[in-house]
C-alpha cells in the first residue's frame, strides 16, 4: 500500500448496552462525506469487540459514542485493551452526554478529545484532520 495516498481509517463504535445510535450514525456519515474510510461497529459491542475490530481493521483512530453515562468505565477500558493488544498508537476520542467535570479525568486516561452535544459535525471533522495522523502500518 502506498502510505501517502492512504485515506484516514476511522472506527465509529457503540460500546455497552446503549442503543442511542443517532449521533454515531451522523458522525459516521460526516466522516465518510469528509473522505475518510469509516468502519461502523453497530450496536452493543463490548470493549473487547471494539478493540479487536480496531486492530483487525488497522484503523488510525477509534471514536466512541456514549450516551449511557458509562463513559468513565468504557473509555479507559478501551484504551487499556488497545495497549494490551499492541494498538497503543491508535488514538481514542469520542462524544456523547458527558458532564464537563468528567472530561479532564477522561483526557488524563488518554482520551484525545470529548465532544459534547452541540458540537457541529464540521468541528469534529476539522479536529480529526488536525489531530489524527495516519499510522505507520506494519
Amino acid at each position, binding site marked *: 500500500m502506498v502510505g501517502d495516498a492512504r485515506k484516514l481509517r476511522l472506527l465509529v463504535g457503540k460500546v455497552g448496552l*446503549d442503543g442511542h445510535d443517532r449521533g454515531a450514525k451522523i458522525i459516521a*456519515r460526516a466522516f465518510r462525506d469528509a473522505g475518510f474510510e469509516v468502519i461502523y461497529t453497530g450496536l452493543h459491542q463490548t470493549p473487547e469487540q471494539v478493540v479487536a475490530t480496531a486492530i483487525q481493521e488497522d484503523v488510525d483512530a477509534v471514536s466512541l459514542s456514549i450516551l449511557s*453515562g458509562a463513559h468513565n468505565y468504557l473509555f479507559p477500558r478501551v484504551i487499556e485493551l488497545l495497549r494490551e493488544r499492541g494498538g497503543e498508537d491508535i488514538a481514542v476520542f469520542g462524544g456523547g452526554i458527558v*458532564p464537563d467535570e468528567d472530561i479532564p479525568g477522561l483526557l488524563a486516561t488518554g482520551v484525545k478529545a470529548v465532544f*459534547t452535544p*452541540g458540537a457541529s459535525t464540521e468541528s469534529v471533522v476539522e479536529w480529526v484532520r488536525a489531530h489524527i495522523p495516519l499510522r505507520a502500518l506494519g
Partner: protein
Amino acid sequence: MNDGRPKGARNERPIAFTTVSDLPIERLYTGKDLGPDWSPAERLGEPGEFPYTRGIHPTMYRGRLWTMRQFAGFGSAEHTNERFHYLLEHGQTGLSTAFDLPTLMGRDSDDALARGEVGREGVAVDTLADMEILFRGIPLDRVSTSMTINAPAAVIFCMYLAVAEKQGIPSAALEGTLQNDILKEYIAQKEWIYPPRPSMRIITDLMAFCSREVPKWNTISISGYHIREAGSTAVQELAFTLADGIAYVQAGIDAGLSVDDFAPRLSFFFNSHNDFFEEIAKLRAARRIWAHVMRDRFGTTSPRSLKLRFHTQTAGCSLTAQQPLNNVARVTVQALAAVLGGTQSLHTDSFDEALALPSEQAVTVALRTQQILAEESGVVNTVDPLGGSYFVEALTDRVEADALAYIRRIDEMGGMIAAIERGFPQKEIADASYHYQRQVDRGEKTIVGVNRYAVEGQGKPEILKIGEDVEQAQLARLAATRAGRDAARWTRALEKLRADAVSGANLIPAMLECVRAYASVQEISQALVPAFGTYQEVSVL
C-alpha cells in the same frame, strides 16, 4: 424588480419557511387550501365521534384533565421508590418507571455487559425482590403505573402482578401501561433480545392474558417517541408508529383474538417537538388515520377500538446542554402543542436532561409547567380550540396524506416486520437525521444557544450523579436473592417456561411462576432463547 422569489415575497425575510421536519409553509391559508370537497362533518366530526380529529371525548379537558405523568427511575429501587413518593406528594397522578439499560436488554446487573451501566439511566431490576422495594408503600390499586420496558416487558409485568398479589390486590383492579412495543426497538430504540417474529408471540400472549386477567391494563404503548428521538421527521414518526400499530392488531387477529377484545387496550405514545403547529397537526391526523384503519381495515365499529388514546412526552432531543434554562421555554411550547393536540397524558422533560438525569428542582419545574398550562393558561376551557383554522386543518391534511403514503409503501413491502427486516424505516430515519444535522451545521435551522446566540463559559446547574455504590449494592442484593430462593421451585418454574416456549402454550402463566420463584430477568429471558433465538441488527448507515 425580480429577485426570483414569488410575487409579494420581497417583503419577506429571505429564509425558507418550513417546519422543523422541512414541510413547506405558505404565507397565508384560506378556505382554498382545504379544497372544494373539504367537509367538516367528514374530516372532523364532533369531538368524541368518528373520526375523532377533534379529540376522543366530547368534553375533553372540561371533563377530565390529562394525566400528569413524569417518567422517573434511577439508581436503586430504594432511590426510585423515594422519587415516586415525592412525585405523588406533589400532585402527580400516575407513576412512570424508567429501567436501566441492563434491565431493558434483559440482562442482570452482574452480567459482563452491564458493567458501568447499573442504575445509571433508570432503576436496576433483577428479581421480584427489587420490584417489591420499588413499589413499597404504594397501593397498586390506587395508582396507574406506566412501565417503559420492551424486550423483557412480559417479565417485568409479571413482577408487577406478583407485587400486587403480595399486597392482596386482584389483578383486575390494576391500571397502567406497559410500553411493550418491540417493533420500534428494531426501528429506533435498539434494545432487543429475540428476532421480531418470536417477539410478536410474547406480545400476543400478553394481550390474550390481559384481556382475561388484567382488563384495565394497556398492553402496548405503540411508540413514536423514540422514532422521533432517533431523528425522524414528524411524518415518519406518525407513519411508522401507526404501521407498527397495524402490525400489532394484525398479529392479535392472526393469533385468534377478537379485535374488540384487545384493541381498546392499545395506546400510543408520541413525541412533542419544537414545531408547534406541525405537532398539533400530527396528533390530530393520528386520531383520524387510526379511526379509519380500525374501521376500514379491521372492520370494527366499536368506539373503544376506533379511538386513538395517547401519551405525549416533550422532545428530549430538542433540549440543549448549552444555556439549559432555555429548555423550560422549549418544554412549555411543546407541552402546549401536546395539550392542543388532545393528549391523554403528558411527561414534560426537565431542563437539565441534556446534561444528566433530572435533579429534583428540574423535575418540579417540569411538573409545574403542566400545572400552569392546566390551571392558569385557560387552554383547557374549550375542546380543540384550533379546529377549523385554515392553516391547522390544511397542515393536518398534509401530514395525514404524507403518512398514508408511507403506510402504503410499508404495506407493499409486506407490512412493518418485513420493512424492518429490510432496514427500510431505519434508513429513512438515518437519512432524515443526517439531513437535519447538516441544516443545523449550515445554520439553516436554528438552535438557540447552540448555533445562534451562543455564549462562552456559562454556568451549569447542579446535576444528579449516580454513585458507583449503586452497582455494588445491587450486585449484593442479587447475590443474596439467588442464595435465598427455593432452588427446586426455581428449577421447576424455568423448565415449565422452556417447555411452553416450544409447545406454543401462552407463556405468561409460566413466566409469572418464574417471577414468584425469584428467577431473574436474565434467567427468564434466556430460557426463551433456545426456542426463539437472538437478534443481530444489519446496521444501515
